């Protein structure tokens, strides 16, 4: 699946420790991006696409970002032109102002809104683990096109993002009686609650489509 022009696009994956970076690395690498893991020692973010991956707890991820100066590097990165920040699962949650996980914790504050716990519902299991549909919202700035609509992606989470501005919601997903925001975009800042790197061929297509936004 490697594209000839993709290998000119530099893609960095932020190492938050404790997560499975291997899968997302392999997914991006297999697609053809010039992929590298961004360790805390790397100060210059010379990438076209920066990925903020998922898995782990909000609090430990934020304290790691703060302690190692990574937070500031991410904030600088998104202010540059022709750059994409793509965040997955916990990574998407980190974009918001604060999370309810283990008491309120401050996030990156790149997108207005909160991260909340999935509410208990009868016969609905939490964590939400498995494949669910996404419904793409009619949003001019949506990074998801109709090919990705009403298809199934892999989710694994107990918290969800609640953006303040509806215009930033790119897709929603039904969970029991509620619907939560499953993809978000504000300018060059993107996120999905599901794991495209774990959603088979369709997920890889979505990751490959990021190049069109540059």
């Amino acid at each position, binding site marked *: 699946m490697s594209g000839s022009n993709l290998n000119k696009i530099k893609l960095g994956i932020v190492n938050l420790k*404790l*997560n*499975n*970076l*291997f*899968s997302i690395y*392999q*997914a991006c690498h*297999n697609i053809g991006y010039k992929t590298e893991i961004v360790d805390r020692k790397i100060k210059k973010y010379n990438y076209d696409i920066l990925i903020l991956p998922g*898995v*782990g*707890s909000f609090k*430990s991820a934020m304290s790691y970002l703060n302690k190692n100066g990574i937070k500031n590097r991410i904030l600088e990165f998104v202010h540059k032109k022709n750059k994409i920040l793509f965040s997955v699962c916990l990574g998407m949650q980190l974009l918001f102002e604060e999370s309810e996980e283990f008491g309120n914790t401050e996030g990156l504050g790149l997108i207005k809104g909160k991260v909340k716990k999935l509410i*208990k519902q009868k*016969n*609905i*299991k*939490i*964590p*939400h*683990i*498995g*494949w*669910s549909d996404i419904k793409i919202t009619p949003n001019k700035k949506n990074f998801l096109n109709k090919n990705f609509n009403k298809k*199934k992606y*892999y989710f*694994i*989470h*107990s918290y969800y993002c609640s953006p303040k501005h509806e215009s930033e919601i790119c897709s929603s997903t*039904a*969970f*029991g*009686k509620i619907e939560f925001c499953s993809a978000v975009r504000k300018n060059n800042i993107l996120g999905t609650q599901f*794991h495209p*790197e*774990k*959603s*088979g*061929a369709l*997920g*890889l297509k979505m990751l490959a489509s990021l190049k069109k936004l540059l």
Partner: protein
Amino acid sequence: MKKNFIRIIPKLDIKNGQLIKGINLEGLRILGDPFKFAQHYYKSLADEICYIDNVATLYGTNNLSSFISRTASNIFIPLSVGGGIRTIDDIERMLKSGADKVCINSAAVNNINFLKKATRIFGSSTITVMIEYVKIGKKYFISTSTGRDLENINPLDWAKKVEDFGAGEIFLTSINNEGIKMGFDIKVIKEISKNVRIPVIAHGGAGTPQHIYEVIKNSNVSGVALSSILHYDIAHIFKYQRSGIGNFSYLDNLKKKIKPANNLLKIKKFLKKKGLNVRV
């Protein structure tokens, strides 16, 4: 109200680098290279792959890492891994190799606080507890070390306890039904999935697509793990190379042309036709 898609999860038991399959977790036969099977299942729309190193606890090793990496480099669906996970370092090593979830059994039975610690560090959704239970007479026991040791603990009580200690999911195996292909132990599966809030994966006993349908229909499980029903039918597709020691008789005696009765995609289509929420 929309229910989650039911996950259909091929479970691959591995011993010394070979895919194996037993009956009641015993009498292990070698079936071939697990990676080839996993790749086949990925193409047949498996929702997740589960690798278990069957003798890891017994021998105090876990050499699954290289398999995990090879799999995660080529297969882009969730990967659960278990067998012989005893320490926080073990979990970290599995995740770094490309596992998404880690299954623990013996380590939680031996020290429930290990479970709590693991879920604090890695998050609940990363930690699955495997419960292997057996019925002897009228009494239920849970088992560790892949069926070798019995603990005088009721599986329902244990399920509730591991939920309290932070488990993100329960992988439930009926040892009595395992490998027999006569259907699931619906009674116990139903009871446990009703009494915990976390997802329960049912395993042990699938012999026909109808068996799978029945356990999903009659309980609140989030997924079903399959092994015998899938592995035997496709073993003939892959050329195997005899290496190491073990029971190769199944592969040696394979008839050249078997028409697979139950492939994964066929099973999923059957379930969908019956009205279940599966990904096809």
